[in-house]
C-alpha cells in the first residue's frame, strides 16, 4: 500500500515492537508527529523536558527491559541535544534507535535554519548512523537500524530523515520483525582449552561486567561460579547481578572496588573476564593489572580481546551460550589456601563508620536496599553518590541498577528513571543523585510530574562537587577549584514548584521514615539528604598505583 514516509516510520516502529517512544517535536518532525497521532493507540509518546532527557529515557527503558529504546528529535538543536544521550548508550552498549528529522533535501548543505549534519556528528559516538536521502531506502534503513542496535554488541543507531522524505509517498510492504541473529558459538577445541586453563589454575578470580546483563546470563553465571567455586567480583556495570554477601562474592572491583576484589586480582594466577571490557577504571594499567595472571576474555566483540590487557585466551560469542557450553567441562577444585587468603583480605576491607549521629551516605543506601524490595530499579547520576549506591544498596536484580559506567554522564539518572518507570509502571524506581548532578537535569522532574511517574529522587546534598573535590583532595593538595559552588538552591521549594512531593532527612531515622512514605506516593518525590562534604568514596585505588596503595582513611590530606 502507498503511504507517506512519516506513516512508514510509525508502521515500522510498530512492526519492530515499539510501544513507547520518547520524543520532542519541532518543525522538521511535524509529519512524523502527525502520523504518531493516528497510531497513538499503539505507541505512547512521552515528552521530556529536553531531547537529552528523551535519549536518557530511551536508554533507561532499554536497560530496564532489554528491548531497543527509541527516541525522536527534530533537526538542529533537537538532534545535538541527543548527542550526550547517544554517547552514554554507546559506551555502555545499550540498544537504542534515535530518529532525527532534518530539513528538506533541497535545504541540506545550505546552513539552513535548524540544520546540522547529525549523522556525521554522531558517527564516532554511535554503533552506526544513517542519513536517509531517498524514500525508497527508508524502510530497509529503519529495519537495519533496529537489527544493528540489537545484535552482537548492542548499541545506539541514529537515523536522520529529511522532512520532505517524511511527506513523500512510497509503496510500503509490512513485514515481520527479523529474528535476532544468533551470535557465533566457540568451537569445542577452544572451549576445552579454556576449561583446561581453569582446571590448572590454583588462584583463579572471575570478573564480570555488563555483558552478563546484556546477554541475560545471570543465572548461568551463578551456576558457573558455584560449580567451579571460583571467587568472583564485578564491575559497576554488573551491580546487583549476584546477591551481595554470596560466599564467593568479592564485591566490586576497580578504582573504588573492594580490597578483597583488587587484592585477589593482584595475586591471581588466572583472571576470567566475562562480559567486561576491562576499562581503565578497572584495569588501571596494561602491565600493572593482574600482573601474575593469565587473562581469559569472554566477549561478544572480538575487538575487546587484547585491547586493554594482554590476553591469554578468549571465547567469542554470547556470554550465556559460552557459559552453558563451558559448564559441563569444568568442575570444582579444592583451593582452600587461596580461599583462606581471600578471607583474610576481606577482613582488611573498608567498613564505614556507623557511630556518629550524622546521616551517612552508606546508611541512606542501606535503607534503600532494605525497604525498596527486590523488584525495585535504581538509577544513578555520576559522582560520589553513584559509587556509594553501587557499594551499599545491595539489591539483587540484573536489570535493576543502571548507571552511566562508561561515559560517566552527570544528568543521566533522572531521564533513565523516567524510561525505567515507563517500562515498569508498578516497580519502585529510585533515582539516586547528588546536588551537582541534579542541577544538570532536574528539569526531568517536570516529565515525572506530567506523567504521574512515582520516581523517588534521593539527593545527597554535600553542597560540593564531591567526586572531583575528592580527586583534588587526593592529587591537588586540597586546592578546591570550581568544586565548591555552595548553591543556594532550596530543593524543597524547587521540588514543590515542579509539583514533586519533597522531604528532608537529617538523620538515618528521618530518612527511613521519609523513604517509607515516598514509596507510598503515587507521584514523584524528592528526599533531600544533607551529608558532610568530607565524606570520601572509599576504598580508593589511586590511578597508576597498586593494591598496596589503596586509600582506606577519611582523613583530610592528599597523597
Amino acid at each position, binding site marked *: 500500500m502507498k503511504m507517506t514516509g512519516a506513516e512508514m516510520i510509525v508502521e515500522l516502529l510498530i512492526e519492530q515492537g515499539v510501544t513507547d517512544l520518547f520524543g520532542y517535536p519541532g518543525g522538521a518532525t511535524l509529519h512524523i508527529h502527525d502520523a504518531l497521532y493516528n497510531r497513538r493507540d499503539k505507541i505512547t509518546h512521552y515528552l521530556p523536558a529536553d531531547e537529552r532527557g528523551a535519549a536518557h529515557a530511551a536508554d533507561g527503558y532499554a536497560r530496564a527491559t532489554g528491548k531497543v529504546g527509541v527516541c525522536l528529535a527534530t533537526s538542529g538543536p533537537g538532534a545535538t541535544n541527543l548527542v550526550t544521550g547517544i554517547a552514554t548508550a554507546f559506551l555502555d552498549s545499550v540498544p537504542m534507535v534515535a530518529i532525527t528529522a532534518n530539513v528538506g533535501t533541497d535545504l541540506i548543505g545550505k546552513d539552513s535554519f535548524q540544520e546540522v549534519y547529525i*549523522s*556525521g556528528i554522531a*558517527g*564516532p559516538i554511535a*554503533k*552506526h548512523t544513517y*542519513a536517509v*536521502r531517498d524514500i525508497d531506502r527508508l524502510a530497509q534503513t529503519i529495519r*537495519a537500524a533496529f*537489527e*544493528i542496535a540489537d*545484535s*552482537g*554488541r548492542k548499541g545506539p543507531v541514529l537515523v536522520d530523515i529529511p522532512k520532505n522524505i517524511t511527506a513523500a509517498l512510497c509503496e510500503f510492504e509490512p513485514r515481520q520483525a527479523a529474528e535476532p*541473529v544468533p*551470535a557465533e558459538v566457540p568451537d569445542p577445541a577452544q572451549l576445552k582449552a579454556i576449561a583446561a586453563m581453569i582446571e590448572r589454575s590454583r588462584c583463579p578470580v572471575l570478573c564480570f561486567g555488563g555483558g552478563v546483563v546484556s546477554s541475560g546470563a545471570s543465572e548461568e553465571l551463578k551456576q558457573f561460579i558455584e560449580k567451579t567455586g571460583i571467587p568472583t567480583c564485578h564491575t559497576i556495570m554488573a551491580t546487583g547481578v549476584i546477591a551481595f554477601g554470596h560466599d564467593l562474592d568479592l564485591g566490586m572491583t576497580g578504582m573504588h572496588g573492594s580490597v578483597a576484589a583488587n587484592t585477589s586480582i593482584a595475586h591471581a594466577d588466572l583472571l576470567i573476564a566475562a562480559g567486561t571490557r576491562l576499562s581503565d577504571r578497572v584495569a588501571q594499567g596494561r602491565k600493572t593489572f593482574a600482573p601474575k595472571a593469565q587473562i581469559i576474555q569472554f566477549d*561478544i*566483540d*572480538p*575487538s575487546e*580481546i*587484547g*585491547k586493554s590487557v594482554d590476553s591469554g585466551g578468549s571465547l567469542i560469542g554470547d556470554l550465556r551460550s559460552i557459559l552453558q557450553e563451558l559448564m559441563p567441562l569444568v568442575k570444582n577444585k579444592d583451593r582452600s589456601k587461596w580461599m583462606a587468603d581471600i578471607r583474610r583480605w576481606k577482613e582488611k576491607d573498608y567498613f564505614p563508620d556507623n557511630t556518629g549521629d550524622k546521616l551517612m551516605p552508606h546508611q541512606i543506601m542501606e535503607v534503600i536496599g532494605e525497604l525498596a524490595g527486590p523488584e525495585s530499579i535504581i538509577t544513578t547520576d555520576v559522582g560520589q553518590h553513584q559509587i556509594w549506591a553501587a557499594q551499599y544498596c545491595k539489591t539483587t536484580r540484573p536489570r535493576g541498577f543502571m548507571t552511566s559506567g562508561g561515559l560517566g554522564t552527570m544528568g543521566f539518572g533522572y531521564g533513565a528513571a523516567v524510561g525505567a518507570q515507563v517500562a515498569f509502571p508498578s516497580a519502585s524506581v529510585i533515582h539516586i543523585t547528588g546536588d551537582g548532578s541534579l542541577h544538570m537535569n532536574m528539569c526531568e522532574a517536570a516529565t515525572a510530574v506530567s506523567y504521574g511517574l512515582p520516581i523517588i529522587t534521593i539527593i545527597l546534598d554535600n553542597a560540593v562537587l564531591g567526586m572531583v573535590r575528592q580527586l583534588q583532595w587526593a592529587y591537588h593538595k586540597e586546592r578546591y577549584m570550581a568544586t565548591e559552588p555552595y548553591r543556594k538552591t532550596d530543593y524543597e521549594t524547587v521540588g514543590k514548584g515542579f509539583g514533586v512531593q519533597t522531604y528532608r532527612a537529617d538523620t538515618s531515622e528521618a530518612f527511613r521514615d521519609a523513604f517509607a512514605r515516598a514509596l507510598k506516593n503515587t507521584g514523584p518525590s524528592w528526599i533531600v539528604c544533607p551529608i558532610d562534604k568530607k565524606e570520601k568514596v572509599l576504598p580508593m585505588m589511586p590511578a597508576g598505583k597498586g593494591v598496596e596503595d589503596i586509600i582506606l582513611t577519611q582523613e583530610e590530606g592528599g597523597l
Partner: protein
Amino acid sequence: MMDKTMIALMVENNAGVLSRVAMLFGRRGFNIDSLTVSATEDPDISRITITTTGDENVIKQIILQTKKLVEVLAVRVEDPLVAIQRELLLLKLRTTENDLTGISAICSIYEAAIVDLSENSLIIELTGKPGKIDAFLAVLKKYEIIEQCRTGVTTIERGEDAFTYQNRESHRS
C-alpha cells in the same frame, strides 16, 4: 622504526564511508601514513588502501575495529611479498639549462617521465613501489623542489585469487 603495514578494505560505496573510516583512525589514535580510495569493478563497492605504522597490538586493533564498521565488508593486511604495490609521484623542479642533462639521466635510470618542460621548471612523473619513489627523491635532493605530490600506495595481490567479501546481510558486533 616500525615497519609500515598496508591494509586493504572493501567498503560499501556510500556517501560518508571514507569519513567514517578516517574518523575511526582519528578517534582511536591510529596513524594514517597514506590512504587511497577508488571504485572497483562493482559500482556498489569501493576499495581503500591504508598504510599505517604500529606494533602488533595496534595492527590487530586496527583490523578488529575497522571490521566493526557496518559499511566495511572485508579487511586484510596486504602481504608485501605477494602484493603488487604502486604509487604515483608528480614532482615539479626548478631548473636551469645546466640541470637538464643530469635530471634526465636520473629519470631514465628510474624510468620516470618528464611530462612538462617550461623555461625554468619541469614536471616528472614516476610510478613504482614507495621505496623506489623514496630513493628517486633522495637522488634529486640537490635540486629545488617547487611542488611534490604522492598518491599513496595502492595494492593488488599476484595470482588469480580475488579479494573476496560478502555483501552484508546481517550486522554483528
